[in-house]
């Protein structure tokens, strides 16, 4: 249900009360303990934020209505007016506070360093500074979350390099750390998330005490001041009368740190501690736990909003570099896809049943499942299966080659069908003429049939090449940062959605248009030969 943002006069609260629902956004993909489908009734959502939303809604006198959005896109949904409030473990930082109305914190979180139980080389944060294998440590992280900022700042402070593998899901990030996928050494995770999921990751251990304390806050539109006031009232009321504590205890999230908030929260629900902390100290310590550590982490880059030409000159290079990754993925994956596709088409058309049936199954299976799933299987499942089949050996497929394999396999199914049509379009007489000249069927295919079919399939294959170009964006789910992902990161970081969006669109066009021109020329040249 779209909610139009209020202009001028602030009708935010009245609009919601008239409507009777508070539309709150979260990503249930993020999972527990925040918002997740109930194990007993998957249609029902549970999680501490579900209960928090109900608490806030009932304070306003309305019912809470959930709206699903991809986590990193939730603020965008707020901007679009699709939702009233975001409740999804968004950490307070000055960049967010500048762009959005931020509530008083409803939870104080800390970050937990995680490593594999059998990995003796990581006993504390300081071990991330060392590089025992002669290469930088690699940590899996939820992209755009506080853990990313904290880890990057930690590396900068200690003048070392820590590679960050960014994931879109917290469980993905932990699984990658547990498996050691792509050389990942460990994970930095919000403590409540680790507590909630720890039994699912028996091979991970917490390393050292929690660090990097921060605050989960609700995000609202900046203009909805009255709604923000009501939200703050609701949270502080829940804090005072113990209802929030009850909720947190239910999800195993209550700890002593939460009680500290009483000190930070003034009687009228104002949020004082932060202001103090911001001006007093920015020390970041890997030890954590001390009282001076109740600090927001200074924003590394998202504090200033950048716009216009400035953002292009400052951030444009990131997009260009990411565009190169897009090109690299495409030009590596597409030839493979065409090759596998041709092989499958030949198996389907000319193979005996024990060859043609598997080929048909392959094409249908690959065509019938989404690319994103195939990427997951290759990145997460294949190394696992290989490890199981060959115990004792270390298998790891890098994110890049997983992405190439996923794209190549996915597109090979389509290329197989295109090639099948192309091969079938060659008149029967061509094969007969070749055979009657004494050629074997394989020789006839190689010399006579396939070259002609290739000319026929050039236009549709080029079309698919351009489509693959854009599908590389999906590879961000397995942490490959290409143009689209980089755009999201930079746009969210700076708020320059339009400027960087236009630049990204231009880059995509600049890459795909020459391809169309080339295809047109090839088509004309080859067309002349055969007609």
């Amino acid at each position, binding site marked *: 249900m779209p909610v139009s943002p209020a202009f001028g006069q602030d009708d935010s609260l009245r609009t919601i009360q008239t409507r009777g629902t508070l539309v709150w956004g979260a990503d249930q993909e993020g999972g527990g303990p925040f918002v997740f489908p109930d194990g007993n009734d998957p249609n029902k959502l549970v999680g501490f934020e579900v209960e928090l939303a109900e608490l806030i809604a009932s304070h306003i006198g309305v019912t809470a209505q959930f709206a699903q959005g991809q986590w990193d896109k939730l603020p965008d949904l707020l901007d679009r007016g699709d939702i009233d409030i975001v409740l999804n473990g968004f950490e307070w930082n000055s960049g967010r506070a500048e762009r959005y109305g931020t509530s008083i914190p409803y939870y104080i979180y800390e970050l937990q360093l995680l490593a594999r139980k059998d990995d003796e080389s990581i006993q504390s944060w300081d071990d991330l500074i060392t590089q025992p294998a002669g290469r930088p440590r690699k940590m899996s992280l939820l992209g755009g979350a506080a853990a990313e900022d904290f880890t990057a700042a930690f590396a900068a402070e200690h003048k070392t390099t820590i590679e960050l593998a960014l994931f879109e899901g917290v469980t993905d990030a932990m699984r990658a750390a547990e498996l050691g996928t792509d050389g990942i050494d460990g994970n930095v995770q919000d403590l409540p998330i680790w507590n909630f999921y720890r039994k699912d990751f028996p091979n991970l251990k917490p390393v050292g005490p929690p660090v990097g304390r921060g605050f989960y806050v609700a995000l609202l539109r900046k203009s909805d001041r009255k709604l923000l006031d009501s939200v703050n009232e609701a949270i502080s009321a829940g804090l005072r009368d113990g209802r929030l504590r009850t909720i947190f205890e239910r999800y195993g999230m209550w700890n002593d740190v939460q009680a500290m908030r009483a000190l930070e929260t003034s009687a009228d629900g104002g949020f004082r501690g932060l202001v103090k902390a911001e001006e007093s100290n920015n020390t970041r310590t890997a030890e954590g736990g001390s009282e001076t550590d109740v600090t927001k982490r200074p924003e590394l880059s998202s504090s200033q909003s950048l716009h216009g030409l400035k953002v292009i000159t400052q951030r444009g290079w990131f997009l260009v570099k990411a565009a190169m990754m897009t090109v690299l993925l495409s030009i590596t994956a597409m030839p493979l896809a065409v090759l596998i596709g041709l092989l499958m088409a030949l198996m389907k058309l000319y193979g005996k049943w024990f060859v043609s049936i598997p080929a048909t199954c392959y094409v249908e299976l690959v065509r019938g499942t989404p690319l994103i799933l195939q990427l997951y299987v290759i990145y997460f499942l294949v190394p696992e299966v290989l490890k199981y089949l060959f115990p004792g050996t270390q298998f790891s497929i890098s994110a890049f080659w997983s992405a190439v394999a996923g794209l190549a396999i996915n597109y090979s199914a389509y290329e197989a069908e295109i090639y099948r049509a192309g091969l079938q379009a060659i008149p029967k007489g061509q094969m*007969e003429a070749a055979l009657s000249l004494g050629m074997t069927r394989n020789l006839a295919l190689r010399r006579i049939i396939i070259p002609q079919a290739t000319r026929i399939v050039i236009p549709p294959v080029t079309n698919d090449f351009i489509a693959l170009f854009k599908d590389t964006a999906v590879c961000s789910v397995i942490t490959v940062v290409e143009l689209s992902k980089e755009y999201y990161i930079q746009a969210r970081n700076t708020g320059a959605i339009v400027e960087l969006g236009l630049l990204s669109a231009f880059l995509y066009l600049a890459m795909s248009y020459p391809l169309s021109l080339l295809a047109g020329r090839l088509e004309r040249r080859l067309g002349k030969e055969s*007609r």
Partner: protein
Amino acid sequence: MITLNGIVKRYGSQEVLRGVTMSVARGEVCVLLGPSGGGKSTLLRTINGLETFDEGSIDVSGTQLIGGDIVSREVALLKIRRKVGMVFQQFNLFPHRTVLENVIEAPMQVLKQPREQAVGKAKELLARVGMLEKSNARPASLSGGQQQRVAIARTLAMQPEAILFDEPTSALDPNTTAEVISVMQDLAKGGQGMIVVTHGMKFARSVAHTVHILHSGSIIESGPPEQVFDNPHHEITRGFLMETN
């Protein structure tokens, strides 16, 4: 050189060849005539394995094909196809290759001839069919008669003992038909063995050694052209000849 013995071919329950027996000697020019649907083209195509058959046997210079046998077929066919070439009604030149490339393709790929040898031979053959000056043209730019002459040169490049002509002039207009017929007559006079499915009586009369009349899947009459044409025994032959003339 080629012996067919009791060839039977069925499509489902319909018999399209009903026990055809005939033989063709080395260098013999043999013409298959008869009404449409009589099985002429099917019979021709069984000889080099483009069609299967259900009963009987085919022997080409000692290599045997047995009806219904598909196991040893592939190997036998490769041998037979090197001895027996074929020219199609629709020419079937390779459109992605030039005229010269069409002719040298099989000698180089199948017989593994070096390129110079294959090209030299190809030019000789293209000259013989009057197509040398079109060596570098693409098939698509040629007329039907020109394409068919190239197709004949392409088949000759494999030096076949016999050539199967499957209605080689049916897709051509009368002018270009004459070019192709004249090339075929030259070949026949030069001692090239061939089996020709055609409607051209003139060609049969001028160069054929033997004429077979095929009707409903059976050979109903065989003999030298003057005997079959001037003194046909069979009722159906007489009817067919009257219709065609």
